[in-house]
């Protein structure tokens, strides 16, 4: 029991590594704040292209993109872009390649969620809006999209949570986010306690979001 405490719940080590891990947590947060809007934004554009543009070729390309990046392992994608880009002659800054990798991956998931959302809005909504003279674009912005987003809010939040957890993959390309910080501290102290502390920090960050998600899901369930 003492060995367990010393190895996993070592308070002395917690105290020592806390500032370092908090810095890692901060990196996780801002990395999430960077890649989630990028992925959600691109995903939304893809969903609009797939549902509102009457062009078979575009729809086919979007479907191909979404299929490919949902099937391609994000860790491999990240390594591929990070280590492969220089060979292709692209001088991407570290953060740029990480952001690109996450964006390519999570935009494919966001695209599917938004597509479902746009599909859930009855056709009559668009007809009513267009009949009053609203352009296709304004109809999308003021009528279709707000309803679509609201209809898939739990799924969007679920995606956000997945992406936050996925940012730990950036540790393989040496970005000192929370997991990387914890692993560094672990090897410094020859003790896995910092990883447990990192898990606690992840929980503290994600628990409120998961609670909110349950709340939204219950509300959606009771509304139907």
């Amino acid at each position, binding site marked *: 029991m003492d060995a367990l405490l010393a190895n996993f719940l070592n308070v002395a080590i917690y105290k020592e590594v806390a500032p370092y891990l908090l810095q890692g947590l901060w990196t996780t947060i801002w990395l999430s704040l960077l890649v989630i809007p990028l992925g959600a934004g691109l995903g939304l554009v893809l969903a609009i292209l797939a549902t509102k543009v009457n062009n078979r070729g575009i729809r086919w390309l979007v479907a191909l993109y979404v299929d490919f990046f949902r099937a391609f392992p994000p860790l491999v994608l990240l390594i591929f872009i990070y280590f492969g880009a220089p060979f292709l002659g692209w001088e991407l800054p570290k953060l740029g390649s990480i952001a690109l990798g996450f964006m390519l991956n999570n935009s494919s998931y966001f695209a599917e969620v938004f597509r479902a959302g746009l599909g859930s809005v009855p056709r*009559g909504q668009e*007809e*009513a809006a267009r009949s009053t003279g609203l352009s296709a674009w*304004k109809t999308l912005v003021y009528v279709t999209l707000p309803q679509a987003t609201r209809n898939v809010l739990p799924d969007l939040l679920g995606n956000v949570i997945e992406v936050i957890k996925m940012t730990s993959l950036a540790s393989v390309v040496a970005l000192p986010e929370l997991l990387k910080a914890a692993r560094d501290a672990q090897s410094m102290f020859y003790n896995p306690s910092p990883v447990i502390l990192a898990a606690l920090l992840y929980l503290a960050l994600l628990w409120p979001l998961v609670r909110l998600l349950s709340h939204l899901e219950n509300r959606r369930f009771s509304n139907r």
Partner: protein
Amino acid sequence: MNTAAYPILELVGLRKHYGDQEVLKGIDLRVRPGELVCVIGPSGSGKSSMLRCCNRLEECSGGQIVVDGTDLAAPGVNLNQVRQKIGMVFQQFNLYPHLNVLGNVTLALRKVQGYSRAKAQEKALAALARVGLADKADAWPAALSGGQQQRVGIARAIALEPRIVLFDEPTSALDPELVGSVLQVMQELRESGMTMLVVTHEMAFARAVADRVVFMDGGVIVEQGPPDAIFGAPRELRTQAFLQRVCS
């Protein structure tokens, strides 16, 4: 120009087909200012398709749709501009569920016609007063009865001060006891001089309020005339058969 004789809506040889099936086989129809025209006929007769072609929610395959002097079927027409002159009321109301009543009525006033929030609200409240719902401005659509929702739908259409309002079976989705309130609002609208083209199954309303009744069947206008003539002494066999079915 003699405005009294100048039709607000004129359909000339309107045709529409889905694949091989022709649903409108050359419709000619004129609606004059201040006129209330009811379109009746069996389901599948093409009356809703015709109505939805009038503001090009559905594309026609041929013919002309002239609204207030503009041919909607002509290439390069500014559809969003012409549609402001053509209000539309839907069978399923189609209110925006994410906006309250005032938001439903002010949306196009603000985003299409460019009124300020205050001015749009003023115009919206006036429109809501005309349908007897000024006190529901802050309510959400889901909290209203079907009849109230449809009256908001009418307010949304008339707030833009259209030249004509199209009604697509406005009472068909309502519980019987709520139909009367909507028909009453439509009658008041007619008395205020609004031009209206109404596709309906409400024969009593058509007979009592319409200036003219159009009977459609099989994608053509079979017969039209004053309500007393159509309901009292229909000339065509198809009209007689239809009226016998629905009025017995």
